[in-house]
């Protein structure tokens, strides 16, 4: 089993619903976020293109954040979900420095926090909050090892990319382009 996410940059309208849904679902303290939306503008007028991307932790398969954690607080859960165990985290910040996507932040309570793929919802068979709330249904969450899953189908039929693959982390979030 290998959880991943595919996000359709052509469907995304940049409404930031996913951001708010995550903040609500996961009690993210005010002023912080676990996911965010980026708008990339390429070209010069009148030939411009815009890409909207909802970004979050890539739950990398070769994740530097897990590797550099001195206490094992950052670890892999079933399906490759990268999680921080709050009671083991000493807040040294090494993982924040190690993440090429800057997907982590220091929670005011001291530990480091980031996207969990809403593991508590996934275990109950639901989608992560961001996926279920998206008004354009532009996100697909599922098991990349299951050949019949929707996400695998989408990835088979569409062109996609991942972010900063040159960082070598094997990110598991794919952007349909």
């Amino acid at each position, binding site marked *: 089993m290998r959880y991943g996410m595919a996000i359709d940059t052509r469907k995304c309208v940049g409404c930031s619903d996913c951001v708010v849904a995550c903040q609500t679902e996961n009690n993210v303290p005010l002023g*912080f976020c676990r996911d965010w939306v980026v708008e990339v503008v390429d070209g010069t007028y009148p030939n411009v293109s815009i890409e909207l991307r909802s970004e979050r932790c890539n739950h990398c398969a070769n994740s530097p954040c897990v590797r*550099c954690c001195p206490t*094992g607080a950052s670890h892999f859960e079933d399906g490759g979900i990268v999680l921080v165990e709050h009671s083991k985290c000493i807040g040294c910040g090494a993982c924040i420095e190690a993440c090429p996507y800057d997907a982590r932040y220091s929670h005011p309570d001291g530990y480091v926090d980031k996207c969990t793929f809403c593991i508590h919802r996934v275990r109950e068979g639901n989608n992560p909050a961001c996926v279920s709330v998206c008004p354009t249904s532009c996100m697909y969450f599922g098991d990349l090892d299951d050949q019949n899953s929707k996400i695998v189908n989408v990835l088979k039929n569409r062109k996609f990319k991942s972010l900063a693959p040159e960082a070598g982390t094997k990110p598991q979030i794919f952007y349909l382009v």
Partner: protein
Amino acid sequence: MREELFVSGRNIPNIDPYLNIWHWQIPIYLFLGGVAAGILFFSGIFTILGKDHKMRTTVKVAPLLVPFLLVFGLFMLFLDLKHKLYFWQLYTTIRLESPMGWGAWVLMIITPISILWSASYVREIFPGWDWKFDILKTFESWLIKYRLWIAWPMTIYAVILGIYTGILLSAFNARPLWNTSILGPLFLVSGMSTAAALIIMLSKDHKERKIMGRIDILLILIELFFIVHLLMGFLAGSEAQINAASLFLGGKFTAPFFTFVVFLGLIFPAILEIFELKGFKVPVYIPAILVLLGGLIFRFIIVEAGQITRFLY
């Protein structure tokens, strides 16, 4: 033209643009680690070479400072932690892949070694010192007898500690400025050079100062070479690395780096030290203080600049 904007979330003060999680504590931690490593290295190596009588300050006096430097350094690391009450978990886990983890362990090993080492010299430096208990006296004579046995592991651990201060940073491939293997040797040499400077300041023996001055000049030259090498390596690298180097070659760290680190921290004190060797009267503490300050500023700049180099945005 390419422009990347945050539509949501990230453009808030707590996250962007300042994701920098390491502040002043880490550079001080690295600086103290470097000085301590340098002193222990010199002390160990001169003992092994049988020069401990000629190099009194290097071998016997300066190491007395090391336990304090190391404990203070560990305290800095502690201050850096955001979840302080969970600190002990650093020492209930062994994770060799984590530089933060094995660095904490290296410190845990070298601190007691440095305490034993200085304990064996306390009475020589402070003749009035009394260990009070017989068991401590026996222990002391045992330490003195086996000094050479301690010197070897201490010298090796000192090198590991010195390199570690660079590896802590170079292990992060997410920060292109840090992600170069030259950082380990560079921090080691810089740490040794600051240690030599400190010893020169402490020493009253002209001959010893002259030897350490020569060593310091050599170390400064190696350091300059490494810095050129570092920047050239970046310029020959990927886009992210070229951007990292440009912070020092025209970017916002150019002036502080070349003024305080390269010129005032390395070239100028080296010139002063050369003058002194040639017999001119130069107050010893001027080049020494410059080298120490340069080393400290160097670490501040590298830690700060590294955190703003990244792959995205």
